[in-house]
């Protein structure tokens, strides 16, 4: 299991992704799968400081990586921001739209859902706990 705690700021993104990638590499995942895991982690991290910490400026995020019983990789992101359940954000509805009509935002959560096998959210006391599960 690996654990890292960092202020939820963009400047910490690379450090965070490197830590996640190292863990996944150690566990023998393919480099494509590792990139997918980094992508989901980036999107989750960015959403935490855009939404969960939007009111207080910033706070810390803890990211725990572990392997589950059936060799799935589990990444948990824990923050102490305002209650924020990523599942309440909906997917873009304009994936088939032409260039001019396509809206600029909305892809972050969509990509998380596409890259993971499971995403779960729960609130525990003052913490948001987001669990991303990746099968090999």
């Amino acid at each position: 299991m690996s654990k890292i705690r960092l202020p939820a700021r963009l400047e910490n993104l690379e450090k965070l992704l490197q830590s996640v990638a190292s863990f996944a590499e150690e566990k023998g995942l393919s480099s494509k799968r590792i990139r997918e895991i980094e992508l989901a982690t980036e999107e989750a991290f960015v959403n935490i400081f855009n939404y969960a910490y939007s009111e207080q400026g910033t706070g810390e995020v803890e990211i725990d990586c572990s392997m589950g019983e059936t060799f799935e990789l589990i990444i948990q992101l824990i923050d102490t921001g305002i209650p924020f359940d990523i599942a309440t954000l909906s997917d873009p509805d304009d994936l088939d739209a032409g260039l001019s009509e396509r809206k600029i935002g909305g892809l972050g959560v969509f990509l998380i859902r596409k890259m993971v096998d499971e995403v779960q959210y729960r609130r525990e006391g003052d913490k948001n706990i987001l669990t991303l599960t990746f099968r090999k």
Partner: protein
Amino acid sequence: MEISKTRERNAVFMTVKGRMDAVSSPEFEKEMEELIGQGEKTFIIDLSNLDYISSAGLRSILMTAKKLKTREGKLLLSSLKDVVKEVFEISGFSSIIPIYDSVESAFAEL
């Protein structure tokens, strides 16, 4: 992320290497804005050494493509691979931004 550019056959030919994430994408956007501001309209970008792209990168590319469209310009991308290709396909970007298997086939379109 490393961006290099040259003028070639009436287009700005660029290569973007490394990663386009929430940290590096603004730099790409700024570079494109500057070039478009200088009047450049046709861009071919070789992504054969782009290892990673997140929604931030997609947003920058989309904004650039939209800007170019209003100026009757063109953005062509070539040689996407692995997770970058996957992300383009699942987000529907491969239908709105012309994508080619090689730099030569992109140039052939001009």
